[in-house]
């Protein structure tokens, strides 16, 4: 099996779907000749031609609006927003149209499109290039939000997103783009959107996370297991919306303790939603309050300060230990 980084794995996933279905169209700024500023779409123009890989003018609303039209007409557009912070310009097209045409027409008009966007900090990028705003999109009914954490699940999730019948916002943790490689089988794998994954089994506490936070989480849990002779379970959400509360609750019911981790600002975030689901379903099984490890409710600092504002393994470890000791 080839060892790929996340950029190569997403590229492979798109490539495989384009090979299978000639209705799959890639469009965005610099996705063709340049292969995308992170090279996620590298080589696709040469392979599939300029009718299927469209270098667009600078127009985020235009890209998604056009993709809505393409999707209605039977194509499967895979759009790139160059950085997530530039994606807000397309919200009227996503929220006002893509996400609700199915409901408005009782399923007669559907919009199977994918909006890919790199998000998150830790790469010393210029301002507006480091935000985590997944909650913004997760809050839009009719929109699915998917966030991979590694090369292998990125490849299987992008395949699922492209084949999904609904609009999918596919947020790529840019900090993980080239941070590590994994074996990714040549054969197509298609994940199930809406399913979290238990990536590490344990009995004493459940850590829930997603995206770039999975690496510090796994480091922290290994350390605590080692240091204290406990066993901690780790859940990777993979799909933010609609969230797989069942997997989370099944785990917390067994462990009785939970820590939720997100890079994004604390209030109104994914962690809040995980805690609300736990509260709804398994509150009486809890041995300790659920802890959140999150960013702060401040405007994302420029990169000179960002390291103090992004959760680390040490930060997660402390929250785990305090929750174990409660």
């Amino acid at each position: 099996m080839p060892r790929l980084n996340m950029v190569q794995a997403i590229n492979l996933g798109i490539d495989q779907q384009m090979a299978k279905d000639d209705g799959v169209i890639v469009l965005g700024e610099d996705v063709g000749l340049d292969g995308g500023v992170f090279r996620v779409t590298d080589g696709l123009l040469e392979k599939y031609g300029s009718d299927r890989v469209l270098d667009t003018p600078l127009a985020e609303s235009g890209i998604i609006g056009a993709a809505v039209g393409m999707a209605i007409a039977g194509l499967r557009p895979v759009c790139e927003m160059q950085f997530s912070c530039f994606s807000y310009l397309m919200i009227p097209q996503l929220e006002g149209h893509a996400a609700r045409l199915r409901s408005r027409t009782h399923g007669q008009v559907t919009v199977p499109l994918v909006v890919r966007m790199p998000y998150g900090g830790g790469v010393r990028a210029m301002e507006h290039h480091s935000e985590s705003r997944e909650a913004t999109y997760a809050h839009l009914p009719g929109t699915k939000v998917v966030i991979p954490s590694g090369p292998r699940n990125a490849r299987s999730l992008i395949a699922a997103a492209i084949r999904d019948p609904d609009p999918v916002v596919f947020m790529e943790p840019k900090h993980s783009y080239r941070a590590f490689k994994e074996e990714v089988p040549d054969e197509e794998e298609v994940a199930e959107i809406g399913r979290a994954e238990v990536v590490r089994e344990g009995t004493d506490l459940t850590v829930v996370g997603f995206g770039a936070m999975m690496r510090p989480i796994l480091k922290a849990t290994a350390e605590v297991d080692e240091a204290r002779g406990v066993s901690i379970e780790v859940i990777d959400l993979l799909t933010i919306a609609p969230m797989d509360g069942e997997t989370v609750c099944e785990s917390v019911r067994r462990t009785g303790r939970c820590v939720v981790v997100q890079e994004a600002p604390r209030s109104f975030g994914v962690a809040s939603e995980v805690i609300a689901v736990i509260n709804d379903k398994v509150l009486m099984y809890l041995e300790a309050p659920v802890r959140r490890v999150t960013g702060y409710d401040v405007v994302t600092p420029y990169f000179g300060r960002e390291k103090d504002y992004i959760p680390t393994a040490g930060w997660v470890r402390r929250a785990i230990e305090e929750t174990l000791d409660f």
Partner: protein
Amino acid sequence: MPMETIASFEVARLNILDENGDTDIDLVPDLKPDRLVAMYRWMLLAREADQRMLKMQRQGRMGTFAPSTGQEAVSVAAAMAMGEKDWFTGAFRELGGRLVRGEPLVNVFLYYNGYEEGNLRPQGSADRLLPVNIIVGSQCVQAAGLGYAAGFRGEDAAVLTVFGDGATSEGDFHEGMNLAAVWNAPVVFLCQNNQWAISIRREKQTRSQTLAQKGIAYGMPCVQVDGNDALAVYRAVDEALARARSGDGPTFIEAVTYRLMMHTTADDPTRYRTEEEAKEWWDREPLVRFRRFLEKQGLWDKAKQDEMDQEIKAEVAAAVEEFEARDSFKADAPFDHVFGTDHAVIQDQRREFLARLEEVDNAQA
């Protein structure tokens, strides 16, 4: 009834200074020798700072930035045409113009090295210089509002907004142009057409024959200028600002120039354009022709050039030194300015943040 022409339009191009330093003398703006030398100096300073930043970026001493080498004439000449009360809101490739408007070089270094402190205007400064706009085209709409407010307050002030060719594809550009025209707002829209929006060449950005003509659709005067000709840029912007201040509304200026370097230091232009193309534009770059012009005017010679080169190198080096000597930044500053009002949720999080930092420090001590 036969079909008849009901409207027709023309787009003019202004070029005063050619590549040899020769001018159309009737069009040379009325600038005193010291102003002409100052114009040249600002361009040289911007070039030196840009190239120094590029070296520092490659050495890991500077973050990602968008070089402006080759485009100095546009923003320097435009900024020099501005009045004290005029607003400047640009994109991220107007280093020279920002320096003219009073931005200390050390602030530029701070900003591109990841500190908000780089946006702080010097104390007591009255210049109306707004921070860099990374979101492409977004400043165009704000310019309409700044202009409206100036008119509303009866101020003798205009707005200069600068953006690139790529921005003309964004909705905000079109909305800003339309709003300014409808409100007859005192705004000068200055497009730096540097031919490339990252990898997208101008011809793939728009099918319009000129960018200048986009002003026609919104009912405002428009002109194309040679953007590597500082005299032409100055004249066009000066006239447009005068028109704006006298209540005759906005103007759209397309300044044709070329992005000699990469989009940002994270970009690799060899993937999408030839080096020959860039080489051709090096022959047309703005500094050499301005020097030739000054020499032909009897204002310049090698001794003066050597002296100014030394002076500018020293100025940039001093700013680098000041920037690199700065080693303490308030860690919790982001909590200071979330809102203009005090809130428990922010203060609680600040306390938690500081306690955690202290714990980390203690653990390391």
